[in-house]
């Protein structure tokens, strides 16, 4: 089982994801350059955070045209696991791998802090080890995390249980005060209909070691490992 971490010009959390997979999860991991279409046989793809192309046009807008995203689209279509974190989430939205779009935080400023998110469904390869309702403390760091979708899309997300994480209070209440950026329905992370592509604004890789204050985010990657292992034993 191998993880691949994409590298775009301007990515800046790729080393963090790499470190987390190799030094905390102890799994093989490789960087994948944006200009290639070769995913090097990876079983899971991490689209990392950062400021791809400076976020100069719109967050994630330019990265989506890169050759590697073409490969990722095919990979996802065949059921491969893709997780987009922060800028990675924004890229997945722009690429159409996930529905909706990102707006500027309602406070207009960049926000870096730990937030609470509630696991809304255990029925994804990214949350299989987390009980629904469990509250995780994971940091965010973004200027555009104000998730937006039209009414029909939102209804669809709700109906198909595609909302994976919502911002919540410490005790799991979904309140406006707990929402750091004004996102629709407190959405912090969603998956696609097939449930193999996840986008989330909080950074689970920044909450993977107790030394850094929280290891609540580790469950996301451990769940991925577990579901990949299940796949291999089944086949």
């Amino acid at each position, binding site marked *: 089982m191998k993880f691949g971490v994409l590298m775009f010009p301007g990515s800046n959390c790729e080393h963090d994801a790499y470190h987390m997979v190799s030094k905390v999860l102890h799994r093989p991991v490789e960087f994948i350059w944006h200009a290639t279409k070769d995913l090097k046989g990876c079983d899971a793809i991490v689209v990392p955070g950062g400021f791809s192309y400076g976020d100069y*046009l*719109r967050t994630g*807008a*330019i990265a989506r*045209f890169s050759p590697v995203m073409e490969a990722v689209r095919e990979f996802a279509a065949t059921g491969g696991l893709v997780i987009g974190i922060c800028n990675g989430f924004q890229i997945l939205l*722009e690429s159409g791998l996930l529905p*909706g*779009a990102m*707006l*500027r*935080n*309602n*406070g*207009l400023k960049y926000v870096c802090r730990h937030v609470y998110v509630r696991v809304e469904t255990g029925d994804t390869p990214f949350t299989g080890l987390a009980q629904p309702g469990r509250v995780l403390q994971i940091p965010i760091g973004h200027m555009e995390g104000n998730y*937006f*979708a*039209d009414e029909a899309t939102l209804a669809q997300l709700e109906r198909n249980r595609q909302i994976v994480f919502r911002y919540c209070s410490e005790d799991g209440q979904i309140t406006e005060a707990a929402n750091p950026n*004004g996102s629709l329905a407190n959405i912090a992370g969603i998956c696609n209909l097939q449930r193999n592509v996840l986008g989330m604004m909080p950074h689970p890789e920044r909450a993977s070691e107790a030394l850094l204050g929280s290891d609540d985010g580790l469950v996301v990657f451990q769940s991925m490992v577990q579901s990949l292992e299940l796949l291999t034993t089944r086949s």
Partner: protein
Amino acid sequence: MKARVFVNLKKSVLDPQGKTIHHSLQSLGYRSVNDVRQGKFFEISLDPTLSADQARAEIEKMAKSVLTNPVIEEFRYELEAVEAHP
């Protein structure tokens, strides 16, 4: 040939930036301001040998596929500051 592509948030999407500027204008005493919406524009110099039709086609294509995100934004453009398109 020059094109100007104006991009703004759809009416249905909240514009916190515009709202903030509106608010600070008001608190600075600009009482006559009723509303502010913020948008962005791109001034694009095009190959002068393009015909107007070609230019229009190019601009529309790039505006739709690159310069805007149709989920939240809409655009209009001007060519050479003479024609305006809704």
